[in-house]
Each structure stands twice: as structure tokens, then as C-alpha cells.
């Protein structure tokens, strides 16, 4: 059996080589230049099919209308099955960003010291900017080492994902503050530990029959799924369940609403598991065959966990599971013991035998060679099993797919165990004594029994007490989800769309693991409308867009030095790292110089306001010797830059786009207009950085920095292995027929459900050209080869902490863990982060069509609470914690519980003529405790913390004005009639 040891870099190189053979490097022109522009009569409108980027992620198909070389409008593309013709307010307002008078047009350098109200920006040439950048970083890295550099990443504009991947190689430093530490990363990571990276993605477009939104509102964010899809799915579903502390815009229609106390999601989830098991609603075959439920846990306290040298992504772990090597000389340490219910004998599942594909979040230099167990002569298997991929099944039968033109896909039938085998979920009479190879005896119980131990305390009444929900409603919700509406279909009702809030109350990893387990025990993994992972398509991995094909000439970066690794050891282990440096630790390192000096960095559409304490973060950025920002605007973070580089808007660039989620579509963002002045697509800027740092980007020795063809080169690399391998042809086909359907284009990797039965669940997002030759082992990409209720990785790192099975932990500054902060009438439990339809996190405050609809930040408060503290609708209030204070406007909202308030996040004020753009005035993350974090992976405490709220008055407000003002006393825009909004209408001049 050949062993797959390909690294991410090897792939990039190979893909580039293949692309070269296919003719990369031609002089293809952007579509806008090649089609009918030359012949278009004045006034004629051209319609260009593209993929929006008005929000951070969702790949809504759109039409962009161009007249006389200007974008005049954009509309939804109904042919785009992933988004149904949706084009949200943000997306439609996007052209106001492209033509905004405040866009950055040229590279600039600062001439005034950091912290001054005016950075004194002076225009410089690209050459001067890049020369200075190369020189400055070079000097600082010579002095302090490569790791003195860190990047800062924003979110999911795939052409600007350098900090997640390419820039680590470019600067030979593992350090990057990544937005995914608090957004989606914990979900990806939880599933990476449990089964496979990113199986937190639910195939919402598959029209689940019971639709569960847990802490999300994609109808407003259009993030993960479009509004139109979300509403369509909720309307069609037999039942719509929502778990959310406040009444949401779509939640008003839900059949069951569980309005839980912020931060108690894990208690609710453990309660659901308890109910589902108690009512006998588990998918028994899946639980026994594809989860590590029947595996035996050694319970003896003095027993030292033994190693498993796994060939799966996580590599070697030390765990409490009983292995063949524990009981038999020469036994495999990846053969996990279970009791055969039919014989009462011990038997095993051998999890090794083939290397799985890389888990992509840390794939930049992921070495997949893994450990070795000497058991690789066979694919993973149960004792006595000669496994082959399952083939029997039938076409899915999901409703509503005809309207959008989706295909159904093929559902593999569940395969039974081999004759004579049925692993037991329970040991008789509470345990089984097993004699080890040294003659000693240990006491074992199954993982399943341990799960039951964990959840049995979470009775409906107990969960009701913790969460504040009604016990009967909790039972009804769990039973409704787990009871199959259509048992004849042979699969479950669908997945759970679990979202952002689960990552924000310092239990991010374990809460998300709970969610994954609910979906597992109910048989909703990789079924129609279920949890499916990232779309398999082209490119195989969206963050790969900025990756170079050349190797570093300065050697590899040292992952073990990643900042935050001391506090959160899993971060420093490349094999099981979530891939980020911990944000708070980075800021503290700047502050203290320990464990080493962080002197410089670069932000690519990233900001300091999305995690950790914004005030503390901003102070630290000021201390850096050198900071560079790549952005569209002068944001608060950009104000700390020594050099700022102007990037292009989505209407100004070419880029392949694949659904990061599970919609199964891929297409393109297509250039419609030129960028203004000297702004450039991020991809070009990344190549310029490689050049400045003396690192080759392309492995073509004659052209290591193909900057002028950057988008086309990247497009061709991304398409390696596709039936249309050239970017220009791909775009042409996309113009004609719209988004591609991965179910059709990749029938094995995406068009088939229950891929853990075929070996494709963990290999489907591997490079297409490799897929034919690589091993496709059954099951999941974990040490045990099963969906891990018992996490071998967490067990390995925290052997004495009882964390291998997920737990609930109260938020550190919530009313239970920190009751002293809840003693006065004006002490509230704050949640935040709900989506404002016209904004994407900190974006779009300067777009008139957005700002006029939502001029100022609001705090939702129950009218009874407002009465109690003497405030009313439309009044400014102070919101204060030990760590900061901000102001927002009261919005009386009966849809939120008494004692809870909902803050808006990430506000800053582009209208203010000062460097920090007023982010301190209203930004919710100014309030948080930077040291309150998830104990495993560092995610910040962005929700579920105590705040004091009181009326803002002339007496207690700067400038005697309750309305927040800039440093010179100018009020922020807080009304649609503000004349300043009109100054932000499109500027069609200044474009080269």
C-alpha cells in the first residue's frame, strides 16, 4: 500500500507544474476586456456574471451591470443554486464601496508618530513601499529572529487570506492573529478533533425536513447560507427549531424556540444528548460502527495512558483507550478494543493502515507522514473484516431542489457489521476487568457509558434551571430533531446549523464538540441536509488561493514557537493545531517582550477589534517597530500602520470561488472594472511581499514573481485536475451557465452521501489529481478512525482533567461563575454579535445605502429593565465593565429576557477625522476581559459577560453630549438625514 506523504507545499508545486503543462502564463485578458466592451455602444449595459463578496463569506451568485465602464447595479443570479438569486443589502450596496471617495488609492507612509490624531499620510510609489518593507522587516528579523513578525487576518475574502497560509511561509513565522480564533475556527477545530475538519458545515441547501438554527441568523448575515435559502428551508421544513437568547428575525416563525441564557449552549446540548439517548432515538448502527462509543476506556487512576502511533492527521496521542498493544505483546497500538456483544469476547477496530488526507487548516507545511504502527499492510478494519468501499444505495429524495436546479446525490445504504460482530455499548454490571500483557488487571467501561455518565446529570429539569428554558420545550425540541420525519428515507432529518455564539463564552471547543456529537448519534453526519463539511470542488482548499508554488529559501518556520503555545499547548502542535497564534497572547507578548520580542507585523484586511480587548490590543499595536496594513480604507487598525497598501474591491478582480460551506457550488468572482488609481488585487500584493522578502513565489525560476499575471496564474493552479483547466475557459463557461455543481463534477467526493462508508469523507477535499491514486480509508480522520465522543487528542493533552468527553463550563463573568458582578439593578448579562442586515462585522459603515438604514449602534433591552433604570427608546446609555465603557442607543425589545442586554459589535466611525476613527466610542469588545478565554484554544469571551448600564447625560458625557463625539467634539452620524452621508456617494473619477 503506497503511503501518502504529500505536503501542502508539494501539492502547490505539483499543481503549478501541471498547470504549466496546460499552458499557464499565457496573456489572457480579463473578461471585461475581452468581451463586447470594445464593441459596446455608448450607454449599452453589459451584464457580467460574478460571485459577490459583500459579506465575509457567502458565495451568492450575482449579475453586475456595467454601463460606459461603470458598475451601475448588481442583482442576484437565480441560476446560482447555492443562493437562489439572493443579493442582500450589503451586496447591492457594494458598488458604493468600489467607488467610494474614501478608498485608498495609493501606497502611503506615515509621517507623524503613532497615536497622533493625524498619521500624516504621504503618497509613495509601490517601489518605495516594497523596498522599505523588505528592508524594515529584514532588519528586525535579523535582530530578533523570524518569529518577531506576525500577521493579522480578517475573514474569508479568499484572495486576502495570506495570513492564514502564504505569509507564514513568506516571513518564516508561524505567528498570525486570525479571525477564525473566534469565528468558525472553533467549530472547524471541534470537528477536526471529533471526525474531520469543518464538518460543522451543514448542507442547508439540501432542505432538511427539520431545520435547527442554533445561535445563528443566516437570514440576516447571509453568512454560511443566503437569506433566501435560509427562509426557503425554514418555510419548507416540517419543523423549525431555534435556540437563541433573543427573538430573531426568522425565529419569529419558529415552531419551537428555546430562549436560553447566553453562554449555556453546552448545557443545552448535553441535555439534548441525554434526552435523545433516554428516548431511544439514537442511530444505533452509526453509533456502534462509526463513533468510538463501544471502545473501552481504562478507568484505573494509576494507569498511565499509552501511545497510539496514528497515521491519521493528529499523529501520536497518549490515551486512556484500551489497545491491543496493552494486552498483547506485539499488538497494534491503534487496534482499539471493544467487546463483541454476540460473544462477550474482546475484539478490535484497527484504525491505522492508511494515511488520511491532510486536515486543511494547518496544511501549510503539514507533514502527513505521521507515526508508524507497523500495521499498514491493510486498510483500517474491524477484526476479521476485509473492507471495501460500499456501493449500494439510492438517489436522495429531498424536497425543493427542482426549483433551484440542484441534483439530488446518491445516498449509500448503511452497511451492517461483518457476520458475528456487534460491538457492545455497555459492559455488563458496570465494567469489565481486562488482564494486561504484564499480568495486571484494569477496569474498563465503554466510551458510551462515559458519555452517559456525563449527560445523565443534565436532565430536562436541570437544563431548564441552567438555561432558563422550559423543560417540556427542551424535550420537545430534542425529540423533534431526533425523530425521523420520514423513516423510509433511511436517513435522519438533517444537521444542526450551529453558529458563532457557541464560540464566545469560553467553552468554545467543548460546546462545538457537543453539537457534533448530537449530529453523530442521530445519524445526521454526511446525509442529505446533514453535516457535510466543506464543498469538494475547485479549488480543493479555498485558503490555498494565496499559497505559493515555490519553496521557502529561508527554511521552514518553527511551529513550536507559535505565540500562545505555552498557555494553550495544542496550538503549538502542528499536527493538531487549529492554526492560529492566540490573539491575547500576541498582544501580551508585544507588551512584555516575553517569551520573545514581537517587533513587526502586517494586517491583510484584519483588525484589532474582533477579539481580545480592543483597547488593550490597540495600545500594543502602537508599540510595534513596524506595521503594514493592506486594506480598502483607513480603518482604526490601519491608523497604526507605518505603510498602508491599497487593495482591490471584488468587482475589480478575478478569483475562483468555491462554497466554503456545504452548498456544493463553485464559480468565480469576475473582474468588471479596473481598480482605482494604484490599488491592486491582494494576490498581487502578496506576490510583491514575497519579492520584497527575497522569497520566490512561483517555482518557475525564470519568473518567480508573476505579479502581472497573478490572478490568472492562481486561477490555473486552482483548476488543476478540473475538466476545464484554464482560467479563461472556466470564466467563459461560468458566464454562460453559472455556478458548477460539485455533485455532478465530483460524484464520489461530493455527489455521494455517507462517504465514511466509501472512504471519501476525509479525502474529498484533497487535490483532485491525487484522489485517483490515494487511499480512501473508511471512517473518520481521528486516532480511532471513528467520530470521537472520547477525544484522543484532548485526552492526550489533558489526561487528568476529565475533558475527553465534552463538558459545560459557565462563562467566567456570567451570573453563576461571577455573581458579584450581578448585584445591582443595572447589572446585566450582555450578549452581542447579532447580525445587522446592512453590515458585515465592522464593514460598510461608510456606505450611504447601509448607514442610512442603520445609522447608530443599538442596545436591545427589555422594556421592564429600561423602566427599572430610567431609560427609554432612543436614548444613549453608557455600558461599562471593569475593562472599558462605551455608549449605544436603547432599543426597547420585548424579545430579550429581563436581565439580558444585546449589544451591537464592531462599530467605528469613518466620518470622524481622527486616526482611531472612534472605535473606542461604541465598540463592544472594548468591554471584555482579555484574559477570559477558552481553556484549550484561547477564543475570547465575546458574549455572556456582566455589564453595567446607565443613562448617558450631559453631565457624565464628554463635551456635555450624550451622543458619542470625535476628539474635536463632532458628533458621529446617527441619523439618515446627516449631510455627511451624501459626501460618500460614488466617485467615478480617479480610476486609471
Amino acid at each position, binding site marked *: 500500500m503506497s503511503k501518502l506523504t504529500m505536503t501542502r507545499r508539494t501539492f502547490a508545486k505539483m499543481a503549478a507544474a501541471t498547470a504549466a503543462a496546460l499552458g499557464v502564463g499565457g496573456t489572457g485578458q480579463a473578461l471585461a476586456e475581452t468581451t463586447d466592451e470594445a464593441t459596446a455602444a455608448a450607454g449599452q449595459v453589459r451584464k457580467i456574471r460574478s460571485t459577490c463578496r459583500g459579506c465575509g463569506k457567502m458565495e451568492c451568485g450575482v449579475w453586475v451591470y456595467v454601463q460606459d465602464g461603470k458598475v451601475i*447595479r*448588481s*442583482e*442576484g443570479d*437565480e441560476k446560482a443554486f447555492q443562493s*437562489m*438569486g*439572493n*443579493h*442582500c*443589502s450589503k451586496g*447591492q*450596496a457594494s*458598488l458604493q464601496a468600489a467607488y467610494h471617495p474614501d478608498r485608498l488609492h495609493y501606497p502611503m507612509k506615515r509621517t507623524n508618530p503613532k497615536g497622533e490624531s493625524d498619521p500624516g499620510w504621504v503618497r509613495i510609489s509601490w517601489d518605495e513601499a516594497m523596498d522599505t518593507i523588505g528592508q524594515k522587516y529584514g532588519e528586525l528579523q535579523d535582530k530578533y529572529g523570524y518569529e518577531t513578525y506576525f500577521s493579522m487576518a480578517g475573514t474569508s475574502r479568499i484572495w486576502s487570506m495570506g495570513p492564514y497560509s502564504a505569509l507564514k511561509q513568506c516571513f518564516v513565522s508561524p505567528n498570525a492573529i486570525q479571525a477564525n480564533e473566534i469565528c468558525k475556527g472553533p467549530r472547524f477545530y471541534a470537528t477536526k478533533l471529533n471526525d474531520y475538519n469543518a464538518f460543522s458545515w451543514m448542507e442547508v441547501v439540501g*432542505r432538511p*425536513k427539520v431545520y435547527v438554527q442554533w445561535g445563528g441568523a443566516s*437570514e*440576516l448575515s*447571509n453568512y454560511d447560507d*443566503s*437569506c*433566501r435559502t435560509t*427562509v*426557503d428551508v425554514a*418555510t*419548507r*421544513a*416540517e419543523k423549525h427549531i431555534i435556540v437563541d437568547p433573543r*427573538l430573531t*428575525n*426568522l425565529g*419569529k*416563525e419558529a415552531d419551537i*424556540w428555546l*430562549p436560553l441564557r447566553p453562554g449555556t449552549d453546552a448545557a443545552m446540548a448535553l441535555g439534548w444528548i441525554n434526552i435523545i439517548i433516554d428516548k431511544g432515538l439514537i442511530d444505533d448502527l452509526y453509533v456502534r460502527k462509526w463513533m468510538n462509543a463501544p471502545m473501552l476506556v481504562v478507568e484505573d487512576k494509576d494507569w498511565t495512558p499509552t501511545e497510539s502511533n496514528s497515521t491519521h492527521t493528529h499523529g501520536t496521542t497518549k490515551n486512556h483507550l484500551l489497545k491491543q498493544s496493552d494486552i498483547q505483546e506485539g499488538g497494534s497500538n491503534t487496534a482499539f478494543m471493544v467487546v463483541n456483544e454476540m460473544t462477550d469476547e474482546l475484539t478490535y477496530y484497527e484504525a491505522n493502515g492508511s494515511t488520511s488526507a491532510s486536515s486543511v487548516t494547518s496544511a501549510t507545511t503539514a507533514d502527513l507522514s505521521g507515526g508508524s504502527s507497523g500495521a499498514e499492510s491493510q486498510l483500517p478494519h474491524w477484526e476479521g473484516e476485509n473492507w471495501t468501499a460500499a456501493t449500494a444505495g439510492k438517489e436522495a429524495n429531498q*424536497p*425543493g431542489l427542482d*426549483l433551484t436546479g440542484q441534483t439530488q446525490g446518491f445516498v449509500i445504504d448503511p452497511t451492517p457489521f461483518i457476520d458475528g460482530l456487534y460491538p457492545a455499548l455497555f459492559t455488563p454490571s458496570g465494567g469489565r476487568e481486562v488482564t494486561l500483557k504484564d499480568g495486571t488487571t484494569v477496569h474498563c467501561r465503554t466510551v458510551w457509558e462515559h458519555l452517559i455518565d456525563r449527560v445523565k446529570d443534565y436532565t430536562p429539569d436541570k437544563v431548564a434551571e441552567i438555561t432558563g428554558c422550559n423543560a417540556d420545550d427542551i424535550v420537545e425540541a430534542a425529540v423533534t430533531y431526533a425523530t425521523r420525519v420520514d423513516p423510509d428515507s433511511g436517513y435522519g432529518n438533517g444537521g444542526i446549523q450551529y453558529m458563532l455564539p457557541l464560540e464566545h463564552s469560553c467553552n468554545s471547543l467543548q460546546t462545538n464538540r457537543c453539537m457534533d456529537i448530537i449530529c453523530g448519534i442521530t445519524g445526521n453526519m454526511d446525509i442529505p441536509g446533514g453535516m457535510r463539511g466543506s464543498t469538494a470542488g475547485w479549488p480543493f482548499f479555498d485558503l490555498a488561493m494565496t499559497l505559493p508554488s515555490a519553496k521557502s529559501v529561508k527554511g521552514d518556520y518553527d511551529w513550536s514557537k507559535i505565540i500562545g503555545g505555552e498557555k494553550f499547548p495544542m496550538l503549538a502542535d502542528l499536527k493538531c493545531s487549529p492554526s492560529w497564534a492566540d490573539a491575547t497572547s500576541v498582544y501580551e507578548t508585544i507588551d512584555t517582550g516575553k517569551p520573545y520580542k514581537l517587533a513587526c507585523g502586517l494586517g491583510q484586511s484584519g483588525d484589532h477589534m474582533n477579539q481580545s480587548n480592543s483597547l488593550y490590543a490597540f495600545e500594543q499595536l502602537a508599540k510595534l517597530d513596524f506595521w503594514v496594513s493592506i486594506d480598502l480604507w483607513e480603518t482604526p487598525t490601519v491608523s497604526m500602520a507605518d505603510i498602508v497598501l491599497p487593495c482591490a474591491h471584488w468587482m475589480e478582480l478575478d478569483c475562483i470561488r468555491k462554497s466554503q460551506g456545504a452548498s456544493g457550488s463553485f464559480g468565480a468572482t469576475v473582474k468588471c472594472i479596473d481598480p482605482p488609481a494604484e490599488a491592486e488585487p491582494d494576490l498581487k500584493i502578496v506576490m510583491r511581499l514575497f519579492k520584497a522578502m527575497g522569497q520566490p513565489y512561483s517555482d518557475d525560476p525564470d519568473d518567480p514573481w508573476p505579479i502581472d499575471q497573478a490572478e490568472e496564474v492562481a486561477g490555473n493552479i486552482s483548476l488543476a485536475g478540473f475538466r476545464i483547466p484554464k482560467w479563461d475557459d472556466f470564466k467563459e463557461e461560468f458566464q454562460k451557465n453559472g455556478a458548477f455543481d460539485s455533485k455532478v463534477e465530483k460524484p464520489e467526493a461530493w455527489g455521494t452521501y455517507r462517504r465514511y462508508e466509501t472512504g471519501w469523507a476525509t479525502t474529498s477535499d484533497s487535490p483532485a489529481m491525487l484522489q485517483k491514486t490515494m487511499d480512501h480509508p473508511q471512517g473518520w480522520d481521528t486516532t480511532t478512525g471513528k467520530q470521537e465522543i472520547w477525544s484522543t487528542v484532548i485526552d492526550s493533552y489533558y489526561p487528568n482533567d476529565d475533558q475527553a468527553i465534552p463538558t459545560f463550563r459557565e462563562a467566567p463573568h456570567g451570573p453563576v461563575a461571577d455573581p458579584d458582578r450581578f448585584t445591582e439593578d443595572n447589572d446585566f448579562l450582555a450578549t452581542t454579535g447579532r447580525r445587522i*442586515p*446592512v453590515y458585515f462585522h465592522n464593514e460598510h459603515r461608510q456606505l*450611504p*445605502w*447601509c448607514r*442610512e*438604514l442603520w445609522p447608530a449602534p443599538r442596545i436591545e433591552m*427589555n422594556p421592564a429593565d429600561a423602566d427599572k433604570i430610567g431609560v427609554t427608546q432612543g436614548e444613549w446609555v453608557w455600558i461599562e465593565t471593569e475593562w472599558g465603557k462605551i455608549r449605544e442607543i436603547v432599543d426597547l*425589545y*420585548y*424579545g*430579550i*429576557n*429581563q436581565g439580558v442586554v444585546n449589544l451591537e459589535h464592531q462599530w467605528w466611525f469613518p466620518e470622524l477625522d481622527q486616526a482611531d476613527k472612534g472605535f473606542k466610542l461604541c465598540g463592544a469588545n472594548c468591554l471584555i476581559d482579555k484574559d477570559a478565554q477558552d481553556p484549550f484554544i484561547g477564543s475570547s469571551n465575546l458574549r455572556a459577560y456582566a455589564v453595567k448600564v446607565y443613562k448617558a447625560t450631559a453631565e457624565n458625557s464628554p463635551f456635555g453630549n450624550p451622543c458619542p463625539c470625535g476628539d474635536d467634539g463632532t458628533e458621529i452620524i446617527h441619523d*439618515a*438625514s*446627516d449631510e455627511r*452621508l*451624501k459626501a460618500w*456617494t460614488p466617485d467615478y473619477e480617479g480610476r486609471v
Partner: protein
Amino acid sequence: MTQYSIVTDINKCVGCLACSVACKALNGVPIGNFWNKTLRIGPNPKKEGGQFPDVDMYFLTVQCQHCENPECVKVCPTGASHKTDDGTVQIDKSKCIGCQFCVMSCPYGVRYLNEEERVVEKCTLCEQRVTQGELPACVTQCGGFARFFGDLDKGIETFVGPYNKTLGELTGEGCDYPIKPYTKDEVHHLVDVGNTPSFRYIMRKHTWQGEE
């Protein structure tokens, strides 16, 4: 007779505001003015003295209702505001003197004075599109797939929305239908003070606030 109109399935409206921006993008409405707005109605306790979470909320899209018997047309001294053959109410800007009697007479507050042009403006039901057989922007761009356009005299089930589907075709019980059945009592209109608004709102399960 023809009476063009829009029907909105309130249960599918989630206040996403895509209709508002769509209108802006197509019609060049000045910043700070709106041809359509989405109002959040509630949340209110379901019953007197009720408490969270027993609350009710919906979103109401409001724009010119293209009334059968419009007050604005009656009060217009120059004939600028007028009913057309397709039943829509339009403003002939060349005749408008900016007196704003119509702004005051409209029961829904959907007209405003364009400060630059000194004439009154409001929703035209995307006249420039509709006359070419296309749908209004607030219908095609509706995030919730909640809006349908058509001739009220032919019945709302004939109204057309995205994918060129009629409300009638899409309505039914079960997962195969994205519009749920509704009764006559569940079809509402904004308050009628003799003007007979033509727009319709389908709303199930929530309590319609205000008069009709």
C-alpha cells in the same frame, strides 16, 4: 381594468432590508429618503401583561400602496399625481410644483419632497421595468422570496415572483411548497380610510396590529 400591486408573505419577510437597497440602486432615490421601508412591528407581549418569551413580532414593508382611490391624486392641484391605466399612481414631475399637499394627505407617509429638484417623489412600482414586462426591484431582490407582483383584479394567486413562479404554483402544504397555504382572513391590507390600498399582506399566526 388593471390594478398592479404587490403581495408580501409577511411570514417570509425577515427584515433583511434588501428591498430598500434594491430600490435605491434602481431608482436613484436620494440619500436619506426612501421609497420603501421595512417596519419592525413589535415585539409585543402576545397578551396584555405577557412576558418574554411569549411575544409576537413581524416585519411590514411599506411603500406607496398604489391605491384604487388615492387621496394624493385628489388633493394634487396640478394633476401631477395621477392614476394610470395599469392602476399605479404616478407623479408627472413636470407638473409638480412641490406644494406637498399629497405628502400630507397620504395615510402612509411614503411621499417626500426631493430637495434638489423641488418635486415630490415616491415608489413608481418600477414603472420603467414593469412596462417592459419585468418585475419591480423590491420583488426580484426580496431576500425572503416573500414578494410577488401582479394585477390585483386577477387575484393574488396569479402574482409572479422570482423564478417567474406564481404565488399559486408555490403554495401548498408540506416540504414541496415554499409558500404555506393561507385563508382569506389571513390576507391583510394597510388601513383604508377610503383610499382602498391595493397592496396585500399574507400573514399567518401573528396578530395584525392596527386597523385595516
